[in-house]
């Protein structure tokens, strides 16, 4: 894979958005102004093109490999799974310790290096491709906003950091990107920093993420202490034993300490993933993060950044699959979060809040996927979710744009007349999210549900219930907003930003409308069309013949994880139905043929079942929110206790406030008092005593007599003589 020119010039992929961000950041305020999106468009667009070329080249390479039997550079490990990967070292970033002890924890080295494999390529296409579409949309959406250049500079920086995250060859690079996207998220949530709620939300996101990142950081340190490396597969790429994942893949060669560490490591990494991907109990920041501009919600808080946790677990799957406690934790936390968030979404009235909880819920699905030994399904859902959730967020952005900042679905209705294009786009997104055949969400969700059922029927049932709720709340929103009698709020929302109505276009591409204001400018609709196409076809295209699975199965991460999982769990399996499904890792299925066929049949049953469930949810939503809306209110009145609990998000925020924030605040106040009176007092005293002494000496000895100074000097000399020589 390293012979590909895109891999050899892969530094361009993160660099171009960074350059764009630098140009927008340094020259935007003064010179570019309304044209600040151009450097970002060019940079991210070029990266997107490079990523897609890389994807095509990798696919072509795999085709050659399967024809030739083996990839000459990388001999096969699995029967039919030659892994395809390439490490690209740019420079040594950090090196500390004794170089002669390389490979032990006496020598720390973190290269600025990339690691390319199908997983990286997939993620890159999501990040850069969808990122580019959202950047295009943002130019229309943000037109005329104050700090336009700042927004685009942050976006470029975000894409750079996200590329570092997914391309990194080691955990330190991953951590760099991880913290970098966290920073960008903070900056962009707090984009409207004049608004106190935006500031608070930004701080909340930052602080909650710190809790997770603390665990992640400790995990990285522990991994280095035990294995002497932080690189996934070592500097020489996959094939040796000097990488972290390669070492973990052979548990029989590990020392007792390393085994202990290996047991704890997934839990620490998981903490970081839960923080970044907004899983229980660290999910509370994501709904508040909707204070940011809508393209940010789409890009960072739906499509890319929040999926970093899923990516991390998929990438480090080898560390997880040997530890069923960790896997079970991931799966159950994921399913619990999915159900919890979906139930909260039932009674939210803010469009973006609904989608925020939906995102949390869908991320829960992905965690279930990686937790039940089906990371392919998790990544599959990640990809399709990126399409349709970005579509949904951006569509609600169009709604918000047209409704002058209003997002409350109680204040609007029947918008299909006002926003005809958006209505169709939103419908596609909703169908995909609800999991209606043949839209993208259906295929990926179904894979996860099937894998969850295979692992534990309880898990599968929870997933199906969540799918029902998902379909309901999605179409509740759709029917409320786009169908029914036309109600349009006529006064702008007090928080409404920007000056979209002013026709004095500052040079954006969508400025052709001149004086009259269009609700659906082409610059905003066009990216949505692409996302909608993706939401329709991505699922079936990637699902058909396990296309994505076989592609990802060539990733060393998946190969090692799959082999380790097989080696760990198969000897313990009660019967052949409990064997590990290699397809979950995209590997060649070596199980008996009749078993495969039975599984295939049960899979089809699941497809049918989840279609029925999705349609049922839609039907309920239709009944309650289109045909007979007062009935929904009556129902809510009858179940007022539950409705209130849900509306208040189960008082989780209040609980955190009371149990964590307030005690910490008290502690802080106590420390402040201590600092103010004890420490400051000492410091003040330390300053006051010389002052007092100086005052006294000034009045007594410093009388201005020349010889007085000589006298004290001689006295000093005498003292020095005494001290030194006697």
């Amino acid at each position, binding site marked *: 894979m390293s012979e590909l020119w895109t891999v050899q010039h892969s530094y361009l992929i993160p660099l171009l958005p960074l350059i764009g961000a630098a140009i927008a950041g340094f020259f935007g305020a003064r010179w570019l102004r309304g044209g600040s999106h151009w450097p970002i468009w060019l940079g991210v667009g070029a990266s997107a093109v490079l990523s897609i070329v890389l994807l095509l080249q990798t696919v072509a390479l795999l085709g050659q490999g399967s024809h030739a039997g083996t990839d000459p550079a990388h001999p096969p490990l699995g029967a039919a799974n030659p892994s395809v990967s390439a490490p690209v070292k740019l420079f040594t970033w950090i090196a500390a310790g004794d170089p002669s002890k390389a490979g032990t924890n006496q020598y720390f080295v973190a290269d600025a290096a990339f690691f390319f494999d199908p997983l990286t390529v997939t993620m890159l296409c999501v990040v850069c491709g969808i990122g580019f579409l959202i950047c295009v949309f943002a130019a229309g959406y943000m037109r005329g906003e104050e700090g336009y250049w700042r927004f685009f500079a942050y976006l470029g920086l975000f894409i750079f950091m996200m590329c570092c995250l997914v391309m990194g060859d080691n955990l330190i690079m991953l951590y760099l990107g991880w913290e970098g996207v966290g920073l960008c998220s903070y900056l962009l949530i707090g984009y409207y920093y004049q608004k106190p709620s935006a500031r608070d939300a930004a701080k909340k996101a930052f602080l909650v993420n710190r809790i997770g990142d603390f665990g992640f950081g400790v995990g990285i340190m522990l991994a280095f202490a035990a294995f002497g490396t932080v690189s996934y597969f070592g500097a020489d790429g996959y094939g040796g034993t000097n990488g972290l994942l390669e070492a973990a893949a052979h548990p029989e060669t590990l020392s007792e300490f390393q085994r202990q560490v290996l047991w704890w490591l997934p839990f620490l990494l998981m903490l970081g993933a839960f923080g970044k991907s907004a899983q229980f109990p660290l999910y509370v920041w994501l709904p508040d993060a909707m204070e940011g501009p809508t393209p940010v919600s789409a890009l960072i808080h739906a499509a890319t950044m929040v999926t970093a946790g899923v990516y991390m677990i998929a990438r480090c799957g080898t560390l997880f699959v040997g530890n069923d406690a960790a896997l079970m934790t991931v799966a159950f936390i994921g399913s619990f979060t999915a159900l919890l968030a979906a139930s909260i979404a039932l009674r939210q009235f803010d469009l973006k809040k609904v989608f925020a909880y939906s995102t949390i819920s869908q991320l829960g699905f992905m965690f279930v996927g990686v937790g039940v030994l089906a990371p392919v399904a998790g990544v599959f859902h990640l990809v399709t979710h990126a399409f349709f959730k970005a579509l949904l967020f951006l569509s609600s952005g169009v709604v918000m744009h047209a409704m002058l900042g209003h997002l409350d679905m109680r204040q609007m209705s029947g918008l299909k007349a006002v926003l005809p294009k958006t209505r169709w786009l939103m419908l596609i997104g909703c169908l995909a999210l609800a999991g209606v055949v043949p839209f993208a969400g259906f295929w990926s969700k179904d894979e996860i549900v099937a894998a969850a059922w295979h692992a534990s029927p309880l898990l599968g049932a929870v997933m199906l219930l969540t799918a029902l709720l998902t379909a309901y709340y999605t179409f509740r929103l759709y029917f409320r907003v786009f169908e029914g009698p036309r109600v349009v709020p006529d006064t702008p929302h007090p928080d409404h930003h920007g000056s979209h109505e002013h026709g004095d276009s500052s040079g954006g591409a969508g400025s052709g409308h001149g004086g009259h204001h269009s609700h659906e400018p082409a610059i905003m609709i066009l990216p949505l069309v692409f996302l909608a196409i993706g939401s329709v076809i991505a699922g079936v295209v990637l699902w058909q013949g396990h296309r994505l699975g076989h592609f990802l199965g060539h990733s060393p991460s998946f190969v090692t994880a799959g082999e380790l999982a097989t080696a760990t769990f198969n000897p313990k399996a009660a019967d052949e139905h409990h064997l590990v499904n290699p397809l979950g890792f995209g590997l060649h299925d070596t199980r008996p043929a009749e078993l495969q066929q039975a599984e295939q049949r049960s899979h089809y049953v699941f497809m049918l079942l989840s279609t029925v469930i999705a349609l049922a949810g839609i039907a309920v939503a239709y009944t309650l929110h289109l045909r007979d809306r007062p009935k929904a209110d009556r129902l809510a009145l009858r179940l007022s206790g539950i409705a209130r609990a849900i509306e208040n998000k189960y008082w989780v925020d209040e609980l955190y406030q009371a149990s964590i924030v307030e005690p910490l605040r008290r502690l802080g106040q106590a420390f402040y008092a201590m600092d103010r009176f004890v420490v400051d007092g000492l410091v003040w005293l330390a300053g006051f005593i010389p002052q007092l002494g100086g005052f006294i000496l000034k009045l007594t000895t410093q009388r201005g007599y020349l010889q*007085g100074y000589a*006298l004290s000097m*001689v*006295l000093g000399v005498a003292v020095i*003589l005494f001290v030194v020589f006697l």
Partner: protein
Amino acid sequence: MSVLAAASEVAWTAGSPLRGFVIVLLCALAAIGTVWALPGRRDPGWRVFGGTLLLVAGGILAALLTRWALASSGQKPGLSYVYFWVFAAVALAGSVRVITHPKPVYSALYFVLTTVATAGLFLLMWAEFMAAALVLIYAGAIVVTYVFVIMLAAEASGSDGGSGASAGLPDHDACARAPRLAPIVGFLTLGLLLFLIFERPPAALSKNPWGTASDGIATGHTQQLGVFLFRYHFVNIQLAGLLLTLAMIGAIMIARKRIVQSESSSRQVALAESPYDVEIPVVLGPPPKIEDNPHTIPVVGTMNPRQKAYPEN
């Protein structure tokens, strides 16, 4: 001589000629003597008494050192030993008079005496070039300059300048300041130095305390000294010459500055508080302007019409 002989028979057990307490006692005695001997508003008898105390202290020191030298070498004193004590006594007595005499001119002359006696000490150490240089530079150049300045800066005499030698002198000459603290601090330092010299001699010193001045080198050979200087300290010699030149230029520049005292009438002369029960005249008001442009300062005795003589003031 019998005293000396008796002293030499005493076994001098320790190598130290002066015990710590002896040093303390001698310094205390000398300090008291100095306090009384310094110029002040006392009866002249006190000053004589103070001088006597100083003499006694010096004598005791000389006797102790002599006894130690005789005891540890076991020999009779030679002529140069006697010369040493004569020169040392003259030098030290002269320096005491420098600081105790109320009249600056006499102090300067006593300083000449001290310098000459010191030159004698140098001769004893076979450093005849240094002796000559000392007399030339100090006695010849520096002191003469000071005496000139003393003569030029003739001051109005104080009205109650004391009695005896200090009668008719300005107050700052007639009265020393800090007359008690200064001797205490000075003799504290001296005590420490003597203790270092005699009780804690450096290793090189105690190894060969009787190494003679003529042992190591023929110190007196001025020619060799010159060769040494110009071979090993050539640049330093040049630098020393440069320093002297610069100092000369600087002194001229400083002394040429002209004080413009146009509004001397507006500046009051106040009487500052003084710890000596006398009133020190202190000129208050804005500081006088300093005219230090060398091209506008007139120089006496020139034919240049742009330059005028100092105005008489």
